[in-house]
């Protein structure tokens, strides 16, 4: 597997929020982490990024152990993250948001920016507007584009469709499918479980900080018990 986290245990200093969690994602694959509120989904993602210190476990990227790397070093090695909130620079223009995403890249970034314009046509239209003036769905697109500017191998998304309308949600999922085609490993935490599984290759269901179920998207969608407990019938 390209990016994997094994037996992660950790929390915010108090009791452990996640216990013995494991996730894996390959290039060109979309993997969703689902589960009820407070299951530790976002915490697991923070642990994989190194924002949260883990007490035990191991994180590997392309067969290299990155468990002891700091967040910024992990980003340099090819992991990119879109937080759930505050995920854009509101006081910078849309174009400047992309430029900041490419902060670590040397040389001409215009080619990369053009790629983003192609992937998200809306961004080209609004490139000189302040990102804070955009709508919720547009902000998410800018946020994802900013994260893609670092040329990541792994893209982690924390609830990319939180608080947007069903139409916008569909649109964002379409963009995520396009990102998958670029051979990027996509790992996302989602509240809209059913819709997320429809575009996911595999999924993990987390309950009270532990791996409860895992499997490919169709299996999780069709399993009776899982449907009843987590997908609303």
């Amino acid at each position, binding site marked *: 597997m390209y990016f994997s986290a094994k037996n992660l245990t950790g929390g915010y200093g108090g009791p452990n929020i996640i216990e013995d969690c494991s996730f894996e994602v390959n290039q060109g694959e979309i993997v969703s982490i689902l589960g009820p509120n407070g299951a530790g989904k976002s915490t697991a993602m923070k642990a994989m990024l190194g924002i949260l210190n883990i007490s035990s476990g191991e994180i590997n990227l392309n067969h290299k152990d990155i468990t002891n790397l700091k*967040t*910024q070093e992990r*980003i*340099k090695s090819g992991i*990119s*993250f879109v*937080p759930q909130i*505050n*995920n*854009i*620079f*509101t*006081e*910078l223009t849309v174009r*400047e948001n992309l*430029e*900041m*995403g490419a*902060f*670590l890249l040397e040389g001409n970034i215009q080619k990369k920016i053009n790629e983003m314009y192609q992937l998200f046509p809306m961004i080209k239209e609004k490139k000189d507007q302040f990102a804070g003036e955009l709508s919720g769905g547009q902000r998410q697109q800018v946020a994802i584009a*900013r*994260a893609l500017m*670092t040329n990541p191998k792994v893209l982690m998304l924390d609830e990319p469709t939180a608080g947007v309308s069903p139409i916008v949600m569909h649109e964002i999922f379409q963009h995520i499918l396009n990102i998958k085609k670029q051979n990027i490993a996509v790992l996302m935490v989602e509240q809209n479980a059913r819709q997320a599984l429809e575009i996911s290759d595999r999924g993990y269901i987390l309950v009270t900080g532990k791996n409860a179920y895992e499997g490919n998207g169709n299996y999780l969608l069709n399993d009776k018990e899982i449907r009843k407990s987590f997908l609303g019938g």
Partner: protein
Amino acid sequence: MDFIYSIVLLNNFIIIPALTYGCQLALGAIGVTLIYGVLRFANFAYGDLMAFGTMSVILFTWYLQSKGISFGVFPTALIALPFGIIATILISLFFDKTVYQYYRKKKSSPVTLIVVSLAIMFILNALVRIIIGPGNINFMDGARFLIKANEFKELTGFDEGLAIKSTQVITLVTTIFTCLVLFYFLNKTKTGKSMRAYSNNEDLALLSGIDPNKIIFLTWVIVSILATVAGTLYGLDKSFKPMAYWNNLLPIFAATIVGGIGNPLGALYGGFVIAFSEIGLTYAYKKFFIYILPEQLEPNSLVQYISTDYKFAISFAILVIVLLYRPNGIFKGKVI
């Protein structure tokens, strides 16, 4: 003719002095606003950092003068300015490494940092008074006036004179130049943009690979440049006195908050709002009204709204009004 005289009068006593004072306040306010934006605390030591910067410039000016170096019609202090800036940058970085860094690592609250900056204010203030003394120092040399009042009268044939001090022109030109460079840097260069990005959203800046230590270093450098330039311009214009800078802290903070704290462009405008209010409200308009009103309506009193002794009350009043009715400032800044 009386109408033209009244305009000349206003220019001489309100507009030109207020523009000059506004520039000095604006440079100070931009510094305060940058510290607030990047380091996230209100730096009360800023006035005394200006005093320290000006003191360094004066010391270098004296050194240059003792070597017989001068700048012709310009004040020698302009040659000494870069050296003074370097000294100020060094002391800023010294206090950052020895004091602020410790509290930053501990993730102390902004209130704690304000108290810390108060302590540094006392240290800097004492340091300046020990080194150069508490008295008045005039370090302005070169030509005093661009145009004197009686020269202006001869030149135009007017009865009302207009004097333009060379320090006023130097202040205006230096401020315009400094602001152009600063805003170009903040808006057009990669490093400047990353500074704005860090100020706007620290966590996301870290996720984008922006190095916080570099941003903080750069902020102290820029702020020290602004403090030294603003302090030196103020000192050239009105002579140097350590406590004067401490007193200026109030109008500078008022300017910062009027413009919206964290917003450099706002701070620039804020400086002029404060300067024009202060000078406009403390000026005695008697002569002005004598020019424009018919004889029977001429005022007997000075027509001065507030005595100059109370000029700081004006900054304070503006500060309170803005905080009550528009805590974001005129331009959108952060709420404090």
